[in-house]
């Protein structure tokens, strides 16, 4: 009898283990392995344009003492924070409308429409924005026709935000909507029954309850914007040097992959700390 139980336990363990196996394998092969390689690479040397295994800290000293590195770091962080805040603010009324004012069918259609942009390459979408924002583009021509001189739109912080919101907004709306749809609606009824007006229901009941969705949406927007290269290059005109542009520049000239690895590691560390901080805030008890 005991043997039979042990075999059953073992087979259950093996079954569970088999299903759990892909996760550690994936993490080891596609996260841990490359991460170790990246850390190792940051200590290598480049001699005659050829990567040479070494263990020298010069790459770290060089990058971390460079003013332009910290300027790019600060700029990237500010741009990503602004994009995350903007996308979250725009997404909030959209998600509220989808979750509380639309019927089931309309909700499915609208959420589906927010997924459609992902069918087109992000690069193509950004190139399309160039056509709208450029000197002789549709927006400037329309504004000029009604007598408004809007100045240049491309290569401005405005164009940067347009590109980053294009990238992140659909995702933020979907995350916020899912969070609001899973909200227990009796809480809202209870708030009304206790005499709360619509504004108080929103700020004292709905928003605190969907905080994880709002924070996670903003976190994703921040992560995507922080590492984005396309918008900074094609709508920012390469004028706002972000860390991604700095990586490309560092590799392009002198084949300095080790120094680029230093920048990449700083980016990863920043994103890890941000993610941990945001998640802990999202699920913190009020």
């Amino acid at each position, binding site marked *: 009898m005991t043997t039979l139980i042990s075999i059953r336990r073992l087979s259950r363990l093996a079954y569970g283990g088999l299903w759990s196996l892909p996760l550690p394998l994936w993490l080891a092969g596609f996260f841990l392995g490359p991460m170790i390689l990246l850390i190792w690479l940051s200590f290598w040397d480049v001699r005659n344009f050829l990567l040479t295994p070494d263990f020298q800290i010069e790459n770290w000293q060089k990058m971390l003492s460079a003013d332009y590195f910290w300027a790019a770091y600060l700029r990237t962080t500010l741009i990503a924070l602004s994009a995350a805040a903007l996308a979250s603010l725009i997404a909030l009324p959209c998600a509220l409308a989808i979750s509380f004012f639309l019927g089931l069918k309309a909700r499915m259609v609208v959420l589906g429409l927010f997924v459609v942009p992902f069918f087109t390459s992000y690069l193509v979408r950004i190139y399309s924005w160039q056509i709208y924002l450029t000197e002789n*583009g549709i927006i400037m021509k329309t504004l000029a026709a009604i007598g408004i001189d809007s100045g240049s739109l491309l290569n401005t912080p405005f164009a940067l935000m347009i590109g980053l919101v294009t990238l992140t907004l659909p995702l933020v709306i979907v995350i916020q909507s899912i969070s609001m749809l899973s909200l227990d609606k009796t809480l809202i009824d209870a708030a009304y029954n206790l005499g709360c007006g619509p504004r108080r229901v929103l700020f004292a009941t709905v928003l605190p309850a969907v905080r994880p969705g709002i924070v996670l949406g903003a976190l994703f927007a921040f992560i995507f914007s922080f590492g984005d290269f396309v918008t900074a290059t094609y709508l920012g005109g390469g004028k706002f040097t972000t860390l991604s542009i700095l990586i490309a520049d560092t590799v392009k000239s002198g084949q300095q992959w080790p120094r680029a690895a230093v920048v990449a590691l700083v980016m990863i560390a920043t994103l890890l700390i941000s993610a941990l901080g945001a998640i802990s805030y999202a699920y913190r008890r009020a």
Partner: protein
Amino acid sequence: MVKTILTRRALLKSGVITAGTLAMPSIVRAQSVTEMTMLAWYGQAEPDAVAQFEELHNVKITPKYYVGGEQMLALLAQSPPGTYDLIHADAEYVQQLVRANFVEKLDPEDYHFDDFYPEFHKFPGHWHNDELYAVISRFGFLGISHNLDAVSVKEASSYDMLWDGKHKDKVGHFDWHLPNLGVLSLRDGNSDPYDIGGDAWSKLQDTTLSLKPQVRGFYDYGGVLSSLKSGEVTVMPGIGEWITGVLRRDGANVTTTIPEQGGIQFTESFSIGRGSRKADLARKFIQHTSSPDGQFTLANLNVFPAIIPSKVGWERMISERPDDARHLGIFKGDGNSIDLIRKGRIHIRQLPVQQDLADWNDFWSAYKSA
């Protein structure tokens, strides 16, 4: 009466025989086609550049395109000898190819140097210890490229115009430090723009940083084309007919002017890769590029037009493509491109002599962030 019955087996059999017979010439031809590899800037192995040679010698040229001389050196360093039969490089990188032993020595007698202008018989970057390692294919000048609706040729005759308030936010940069800092070094009055001491280097950094408020953006090849065409920028230092020539084909009213302070010359060349098993064929290709036919083709490549060193090629350009020839500076008389070189207004693009390349790159990153 004899009845012919077409069985399934007979049908398949005759089908296979017919297909085999029809395909035979292609199979035989495919078997005899030789493959030759080329490491090059984009466009050098496209059909308009190599189809004539491929047909003539029954060869297929397979390109590996790179972006920037340093990427080329890295690719060679990571590949075994013989990987690339032909190497297409800018002159400033040929010396590094020689030092790293990536290219074979060439025999000058094999090529059409007699057809070339004397300036290119012994082009400095292509020779090392009196031995030839690369044969020039074409070249171009870098100065100020500008939209003629916004900036006249007269106005573009000095780099000082870049700081003019009316061009604020209309100056663009091709995102590579070497040509940009080269022309700004000329503006600073350095007679050898890449061989400058500490003081001149500091001054060049100040000059460049002072231009930043005028700058609209930093662009890659595609971005340079679209920004100049759309009017997003009206003037760009450090580029040349390799951009404006392409835009003009598309109807844009743009040109390149070499200011009084001078211009920078880029030079393309072909070498034979170390250990190439098709060195004879590679040699024939370089002979073809230096021949009058090959030179005419190279001047008019789809990727971008460029000046050719062959006098015979010039004659053909002047008679068959007079408009393109004039924009390239291929014409008879004062002010043509050879005349500019002889008057000392053109300086060959090279790597910085007294500073480390990384210093120039770091400064360029700092400038972009400023």
